[in-house]
């Protein structure tokens, strides 16, 4: 076994890259991940990536915000310190709605984006785990784990057949920055 860890098929066109994924899958070659400079619609279905459940998290955070706002206002304005404003009821629900709405949005946005950053491991100072520097520019990269047993020459020819401009053999997983 050589020292090659990952084989990268570098495509210049998203449709050709999708074609490359099909080719590899037809030959039962497992794809490690795909790196692209823009979102590719339909790629999740092809790779069998499960649907993101971030929307469920967003809803839960949002409803927490609604309840938090209601509890805060109810406690302060109705329970803790009632104010007599022209004899009107202290429990003035219509007046509570604007802040309940704002906090729903606030909790939902921060909770959801926080979950996104946490689940995708995005935070300031995280070392970028980059396999190919052009994956954020103009190349669409299919990464294949070289240790998985697929024959390298076959992977190479399949990728080139599908239109890969270049096939790279990385000896390190990430060409991270020195």
């Amino acid at each position, binding site marked *: 076994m050589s020292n090659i860890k990952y084989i990268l098929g570098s495509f*210049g066109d998203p449709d050709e890259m999708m074609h490359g994924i099909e080719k590899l899958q037809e030959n039962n070659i497992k794809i490690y991940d795909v790196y692209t400079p823009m979102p590719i619609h339909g790629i999740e279905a092809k790779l069998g990536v499960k649907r*993101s459940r971030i929307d469920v998290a967003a809803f839960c955070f949002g409803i927490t915000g609604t309840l938090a706002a209601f509890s805060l206002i109810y406690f302060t304005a109705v329970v803790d310190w009632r104010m007599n404003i022209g004899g009107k009821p202290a429990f003035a629900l219509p007046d509570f709605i604007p802040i309940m709405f704002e906090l729903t949005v606030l909790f939902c*946005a*921060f909770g959801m984006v926080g979950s*996104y950053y946490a689940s995708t491991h995005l935070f300031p100072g995280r070392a970028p785990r980059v396999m190919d*520097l052009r*994956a954020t520019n103009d190349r669409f990269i299919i990464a294949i784990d070289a240790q998985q047993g697929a024959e390298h020459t076959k992977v190479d020819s399949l990728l080139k057949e599908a239109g890969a401009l270049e096939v790279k053999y990385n000896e390190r997983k990430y060409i991270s920055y020195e």
Partner: protein
Amino acid sequence: MSGHNESILREPLITGKDITYARITEEVLMPVENKPNKAWWIGFIAAACGALLWVFAVSYTFWTGIGAWGLNKTVGWAWDITGFVWWVGIGHAGTLISAVLLLFRQNWRNSINRSAEAMTIFAVICAATYVVSHMGRPWLAYWVLPLPNQFGSLWVNFNSPLVWDMFAISTYFSVSLLFWYTGLLPDIATIRDRATGMRRKIYSILSFGWTGSVKTWQRFEAVSLILAGISTPLVLSVHTIVSMDFATSVIPGWHTTIFPPYFVAGAIFSGFAMVQTLLLVARKVLGLENYITMFHIESMNKIIIVTGSIVGVAYLTELFIAWYSGSEYEMYAFQNRISGPYWWAYWLMMTCNVISPQLFWFKKIRVSIPASWVLSIVVNIGMWFERFVIIVTSLHRDYIPSSWVMFYPTWVDISVFVGSIGLFFTLFLLFLRVLPSIAIAEVKLLLKSASEQEKKRQIENNEHDKVYVDSYVESLGKFDSVKQEDYAKV
């Protein structure tokens, strides 16, 4: 799919020949990766002088108190709240472009959303500084927060629109910032992977370790869509609540139920005008004519006519209701606006907001860059006067004629306002230098479907009916970045 087909009748969103993914990166990052040119330095120095004036005037206000402004016993709110509402309104277009147009799948938003969102953030910063400085004792600004009773005798009054406004503006600012920054991550990663040395280190931290893997993009798209979904009602709520600061009072001229929709339409109107003012210059100076095309300019002008007309209808409705309500105080407030000592402000507002934007019905004016730029500034002047008219003319003649006064701004009032424009442009010009002014990843999505070169290829391969092709080529006539000769032979 990235390669999906778009109707040939739709005008292209990217023009130019031989555009590749690499070239999009190159052209958008040109101002970020190179030394600034002379035009930028001139603009920046002028803006920075304005920002310094702002720092001085605001510090002076903090030191001496708001007695430094021209306010008096009768007119207790004037240029401060005018400036606040004006800036918040300008901010609204950014969210409208990034959120509402995303929900409506308007792909032309892709090349203008980034700078419009940046504009939102800077405009809200300018607005928020007014809120803090008009408090008089800004070091006690935290009193607007719902703090327990040991900070004073009471909690904040949750029935007050001013408290709602604090929640609305702070939510709006922080959610806009989050939306903007999350959208920036892939583009910061693009800069990072092209940079070396110190720059790479800085952008590496800023990029949060973005890789562009399948799962990252999948979640990114879900997050963007949900953020757009919650930002849309948010942006409408913000200006609704701003208008309630006035509408829930019992001052004639303020106490009207029409205020929320009227303020929201006015906000979108002034915001789009400010986007035009900025982008018409930026596209020229930064050489982005192929990405911010005549189609974008014309679309924004159409939104300006629509919202300007809504604002016009609102003005007329206000006048009608003042008469129809039978309330003599309400009627007097409007008579005073039209023909009182501030008649000039009222008519300036009417001309700039209702009459002059109607010129955009003429296609020649709508697709003319100088005309669009001048009219966008006219709209911004008009919208400033709208807030001035609503605030000052409703206050300056109250119920007792002996307390009737005029409002005269002091040099501090003027400096805070002029300075806030300087601050805004300083921030915007810095943004153009350090971050990509166009969402690179989103524009790349358009290359294989909505670009001129793709459509031209289809025409050359005779994929479309001649009638459609002719009408498409005719629609390209207005584009300043397309040469009609290229289509002469096809």
